[in-house]
């Protein structure tokens, strides 16, 4: 099992979500996050006052899935989230040791 984490532009969320669902992803977690990478914050000047924007607003999607699904998931995320510009985001893949569904006590694959 793997966890796929994707940081993407907020307006791309619906597309990415739909694409992931279409390839068989059954659940995901979304959070509103802020941070910076190459798309650093910037400064705005409005009527003489400066407004420093240090972090950029992004959406983070987390999905735990079977390892076999990962390549396709990464592919569709890239396809859908890409605009070709800085700030399109990143995808991280990491191993997951165990999953437990709290309600039923199922573990492993069934619990995903």
């Amino acid at each position, binding site marked *: 099992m793997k966890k796929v984490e994707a940081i993407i532009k907020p307006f791309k969320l619906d597309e990415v979500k739909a694409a992931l669902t279409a390839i068989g992803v059954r659940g995901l977690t979304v959070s509103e996050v802020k941070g910076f990478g190459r*798309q650093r914050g910037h400064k705005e000047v*409005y009527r003489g*006052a400066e407004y420093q924007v240090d972090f950029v607003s992004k959406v983070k999607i987390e999905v735990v899935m079977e390892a076999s699904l990962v390549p396709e998931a990464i592919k569709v995320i890239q396809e859908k989230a890409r605009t070709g510009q800085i700030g399109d985001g990143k995808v991280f893949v990491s191993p997951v040791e165990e999953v437990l569904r709290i309600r039923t006590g199922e573990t492993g694959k069934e619990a995903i």
Partner: protein
Amino acid sequence: MSSAFEQLKGSRNRLIALLAASQEMDDVQARHTEMMDQYFRTSLEESRSGQRLFSEKVPFALVAVGGYGRKELAVHSDVDILILFGHRIPDLAKGLTEEILYPLWDLGLDLGYGTRSIKDCLRLSREDFEVLTSMLDARFLCGDSPLFLNLMAGIQGKVVSKKKEAFARWLEDLHQIRMERNGDASVILEPDLKEGVGGLRDYHHILWIAKAFFELMSPRDLETTGRLSHNEYLELHRHLSFIWLVRNHLHQLSNRKNDCLHFEYQEKAAPRLGYRDREDLLAVEQFMGDLHAAMASVKALNRAFIRAHLPRERGLWKRAECMEVGEGLHVHQGEIGFDSATTILKDPLLLMTLFVQSSRTGCPLSMEARRLVTEFLPLVDDALRRSPEAVGGFLQIVNGDRAFDVLNQMHEVGFLSAFIPEFGDIANRVQFDAYHTFPVGRHSLETLRRLKGTRGEKDIFLLDILLELPDSEPLLLAGLFHDIGKVGKDHAVRGVEIARGILERFQYPQRDVEEVLFLIRHHLLLVETATRRDLADEKSVVNCARLIGSPERLRMLYLLTWADSMATGPRAWSDWIANLVQELFFKVLHILDKGELATLDASEKVRRTMDEARRSPVLQGIGLNPEPFFEVMSPRYLLTAVPRDMVRHMEMLHRMRNLSAEEVRYPFCLETRENPGEGCAEVTFLAKDRPGLFADMAGVLALNSLNILSADIYTWRDGTAVDIFKVTRPLDAIHPEAVWQRVREDLKRTFEGKLSLPYRLGQKRSSPFLSTSDKPSRPPEVVIDNASSDFFTLIEVFADDRVGLLYLITKTLFDLRLDIRIAKIATKGDQIADVFYVRDFEGQKIEDEVHLREIEGALRYQLQ
């Protein structure tokens, strides 16, 4: 187990089962209380310790206190009981509690009890007002009644009479604490039925004050002694009964004492209370609408009662004794009221005047005034709603410093809904989700409050925006009416029609009407665009700018967006959203401040150009649909191209696309035409854009001795480059076509890498036939501007003109990995003044200082 216990257990279970089956259960608390009373009486009779106390002539009494004393026992409420003795507590008392009270724990009841002497009770009441309140609610159950009467007399004579002031202050502080801890239940989506403001505690406060200050005994006395009017009492009783019933269902559903009505229980409770889903409203939404209205009414009555009967409430409202408030009105003890009811009948406008004066003086309505307004609401007819005096008064209130407080009073007594019936339609509408905290009516008022309160905000950004707004009345009205269309889908669109009706009735100035309606129509635009569109994409920003049209409107829209979100709930406005909306704000502002793109004239012009192009016989002749082309054209192109050229470009692009990929590796299309009037030729060049394309083109033209006079380059969103050059006419005036053919050939070879432009141009420059003038040259000037555009870095170059200069500049930019998206080339005499809009190959502005200095240095070097 005793028979009393078995009886209680059985009847309690039956009661809970009836409740679960949603039987008509208005009297559930009375029945529950009666069961408990019955239990205590019977079990005392059965108790051996009780018998011994009787026979030893030790007086004692069982006293119900707290909620049980008030006969408000919900199915899982605490049962608080006092075992009262005269002076000394005998050892037998322990046996009594064991026999009578312990069994109740086995039933799962939350039992609170105390075994106390009268003296203990009085001491505790003095020390802790919470004990005092439970004593005020005390009710005799069984035992020795003179003992109970002694206790009550002691509470009045020895505690209350000496502690009135302190007790009143304590109650008000308690109210404050509840407000902070539990919030205003009449507007919160998951209200606390008991402790929330507007909850049962508000009623208890009224009762405690009545008992402590006026020595009233039962709730009914509130009416019989004239503290409340008949209608007020009936209303209060009706609302309380509803809240009590809801509370009992909540207890039963959560199977424990629980007063916070969470979403899951709201859904379950609604059908039990007889609500059914309707087409326009869910059962649960109707239910919560009614509950909020009930709690709002309890809250309002509490506030009015406290103000009328307690020493002055501190804070909020100003003290004002002898203020001039106009004919028919007066101020008494800091509250405003009518001189008499008959004056209202003679002059219904007085109803509005009352609120205007309340706004002006800062005096709240007296309880009597609230009563009269409610009773005379039928006088608010269409004539009054249209009367310029009433409308003027209303606007004066909206513009005044106390707009929120006064409008809130108007809302509480029903006047706002009477004066603006459209507002009444949405006032109690609840959206059943975790996003909206308030029903629509209160949400609208909250929005107005935020708009009014911007000056107190710490966020300096908002302050800057507000300070620049000359007249915020349209903004305030938009804040009040922005959700007026929330009776169905597309509420922004619907709201415009409804608000138009209101404003027409107000005879509001036409220009301002448009302003208000615009704000209502687009109050979601900024948030929706910021969260759902690509802000790095010029088109979405330009579209937004086009809709908004002026920096002033943008500022108003930003404020409305902020206020609306803040008033919606904690999740609607976060740093995360603020970031996105502010980014959009600045981008739109820059376009509006700088460009002509977004003016209404511009969009009208674009529309006309497109219409004309659609009608072109050329396109119809070859059966070409222009719509997909319009989609990809850049905004600047749409604005500047004339219909005839636009058609030509589409046709050229169509032709280029039809070239087969095998025969032509680098498809392009080049057309020329003479421009006799200007003594120059125009070259139109289309190709799939790639970095360096412009440099190649400039180089090839220079190589063929075609001096570039000006150039406009456009990049469509599908990656098509459309470059239009004005060049000097070919030297070979007799066979110009031969020159153009050579240009095409050179381009093809350049693209294929078979022709080296630096080499050929170098060769050409060193040719002795080309005169190099000796006149003094100006040093070249390079200006880099990162502030003018959100999407591009602007590079301005001023220099003396010479062969291949444009090629050199553009080649340098290409070498520095810059993509030229827009170029404005101007040659005046022997001077060039060029502006290039560039981005890096990843489509970003150049922010890296080192990179920027490199660009500047490299250009200066090349231009020497």
